[in-house]
């Protein structure tokens, strides 16, 4: 989703907040993309794991079509901060991730 679109949704759903600027670090520590391991592909997991007799796997992510195909309609996760925090240094006021629905044009989930 475009930034303007996200800003509009923030005003609508989270009054008193704004999108964190791209130059606005969440803190002074950079993230690293070097995990020791990764989650296997979901079909491989389902092939190898006995998920019990509740038929869960059959209704699981693969059958349900886990991931929609159109990338342009992906939801967005973006950082939002209070516009006028009582204490900008307070840890709770650091930017927090919000989940924006591409289809509904609303915030459907929040960090925390």
């Amino acid at each position, binding site marked *: 989703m475009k930034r303007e679109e996200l800003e509009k949704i923030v005003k609508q759903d989270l009054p008193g907040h704004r999108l964190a600027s791209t130059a606005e670090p969440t803190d002074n520590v950079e993230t690293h993309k070097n995990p020791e391991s990764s989650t296997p592909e979901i079909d491989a997991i389902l092939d190898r794991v006995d998920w019990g007799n509740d038929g869960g796997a059959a209704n699981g*992510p693969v059958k349900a079509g886990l991931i929609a195909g159109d990338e342009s309609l992906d939801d967005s996760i973006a950082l939002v901060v209070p516009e006028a925090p009582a204490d900008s240094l307070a840890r709770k006021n650091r930017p927090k991730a919000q989940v924006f629905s591409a289809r509904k044009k609303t915030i459907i989930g929040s960090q925390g």
Partner: protein
Amino acid sequence: MADIATVHLLDVGGADYGDCVVCLFGDDTVLIDGGHPGNFNPLKGHKALPDQIAAVLGQNAKKLHVSLLVVSHAHEDHIGCLPRMVKEGILTADFALVADPDRGWGRTPDDARPDAGLDRRSRQLVMALREEVRSPFLPDDELTQFLADAVDMEPPYREMLDKLKDNGTKVVRHGRDSHVQLLKRFQKIGFDILGPVKKHLEKCAARVVKGMQDAAEFVADMTRDDAVSSAVDAYRRMMTSGVDAGVPRFGNYVNLQSSVLTFEVGEKRFFFAGDFQFQDPQSDEPIIIAERDRLNQAIAASSPYAFYKLCHHGSNNGFEASILADLKNTKFFGVCGGSESHPGKKTLALLEKNKSQLTWARTDHNRHCTFHVGQTMKVDVETGSLNDPKPNPPQKKDTLEQVPPGAPPAAPPEVEPRIERSDDDDRVEVVARVPHVRTRVTITIDVDPAPSTDRGGESKPIRSATPASVEHAFTVSPAVSGLLVATNARKLADNIGDDIAEEVITGLRAAGALVIGDLPADADAAVAAAPVQAELKRNSRIKGVVLLGGYDVVAAQSLDALPPSLRKRVGSTGDPDDFVVWSDEIYGDTNGDLLSEVPISRVPDGRSADLVLAALSAKSGGGSKSPFGMRNIERPFADLVYVRLDSNGKMLTSEPSEFDNTGLAIDGDYAYVMLHGDYTDGSRYWGEQTPNDREALNIGNIPKRGPAVVFTGCCWGALTVDRPAGRFAPGQTLTPKRPENSIALTFLQNGALAFVGCTGAHYSPREEPFNYFGAPMHQAFWDRVLKGSNPATALFEAKKEYMSGMPHGQTKPSSAAIEFKIWRQYTCLGLGW
């Protein structure tokens, strides 16, 4: 049925490397090598070799006799204490097949000795280079002994050969004397010498001569301006300067002189080859390469073997997959000795990879190993478990200061300690003045106040049975019966004290837990998990795994919560962890999918003996008391979870609730908390819109006897170190959180059976009916607890249920990624059972 043959790999102690093998082949007894010189006596809890040999042979330790004595090659960790045993009349033999000392020490016919003009310290260094390389980071006493043995080994070895002859032993120098009589004598036990051939031995000897010359020149140069350093310091300086500095190493040419021997008894074959480097001779000499290849073919032609002793202490240069394949149906392997690189990681990984077909034992972890060969095979080990794939940890390098070559030894620093005692706070202040020059100073402080003033430190580890064990009437929970508890006892002891760690492990075992106390230290989770996984595969009755200790004791794994295909599609996001989380599930994974097959929980030590003792004796509350619930005002979904716990109750919300409200009392058996957390400060949780951003809850709110089960949806609530996995890079240091800066650890220290939470940022649903992101996990967990599951099992089952429902209608890649993160990051801290 009686054994056809028995092979004993004897315990050669904790020093690097070393071989000593006793074979019982019918009426004939074969002793191959003699460990280290120091093995003549008991050493650091390891039995003396003469005593071990006597026990195996059923003879008097003062009067041992074998049919055949073998010295595989002329290294001190193989010749070992044989010269002394022979000299003192303890050991006699009918025959001896021995390494030729002239070739082993590179003595030429003209008796030119490159080391002849050197002083003792320099000769020690030269001879050390002829031996197996020892780590320069070994303790002083071990290096001192090694250097002395290296330089002093040749004369007694030669004397031993003379003494054997004097005693009537038929001594055969491999490649020098005729083997005919020897082979004929032991024909009935199928004795054969596959090699190496004389041409190869001569080439190796020539390279030893050259190595001695190069080493003598190198050492002379290195020590020219340094007449006062000890041999140990000079050795360390030499070995830390690296091969780029031209340090000549030629121990491989002694290894390559190892006799390659086979025996055959009752159609069972046995293989021994000292330290021969079959995989990598570390030589480009065509004669040597050709002989290595010929031997590999000959060994393959004689396979399979009932027993195969891995060469060169299991080093990577002695073994590889193609060699294993050539051994066909050989299933039983033994490894003698050990060090940082022996057995090699590749060798261990190869064995581990083929463990379903193989059985191995190793004296560095199993001590005395006995292979009983009959119609069936049986392996007994003195300690530990078979098929142990753990590499040995590296020697600590931070104990040394790197001294540049030629640097004069520093004068003893002038240290003037000044000690002051404060009457106010019972602390002692020590000031030491150290000269501002390159130096190293060791300061030892013994504080021995009168008993009335000894309160102990607040945060330092407890080193003996101190307040922790007095305060707690420690009884391990009976729920541990049938659980596998995994830890590194030494690292745990570093954090909570030797006595407490021992008490805990003893208590766990007494209560029926299976304890693995020697997980590899300083290893990544994949390596550390291997013995746990192996035990789970072996024992299907294990109900669950409890990791005992923080990440510095038992490593957690940084895990990408996303499958690779989803990772590609998500791209850059605002997730604070980039969807990378700490996970313990690998410890319960027996089929390689990084998902645990049994419930996993972790008791982080928090550098607190009190915490560990409390957590391991924690009990379920039963749920009879009213639960506690508190949520962020913006998280109404939590109410729908909480009604499961208390249909009439209501969660506190923040705003308005704050930590100092009089109505805030956590006094139930269950606590459910849905607030903001922060990874830099685990001591408090926040709501929304509180005046001055005051927190909703902090560690001061946790009662001394808190709830039994705590479940949170707080970001990083179950993070027990200072860095989330998504912000951790290899090489960085992880600092464990302590109870005083972690709500989770304080709950555990105050008696909680479990604290279940996230190792990364959590996500909550904002749209009704609130049935996605964190909500289904919260519901599934509490539903199972309320049905009577213990929290570890409840989380295990809740994860299954959550996964089966994923993505809970969130089919876009970024939202599905959040579901994967919720699923992977939830962790059970505490005993959980």
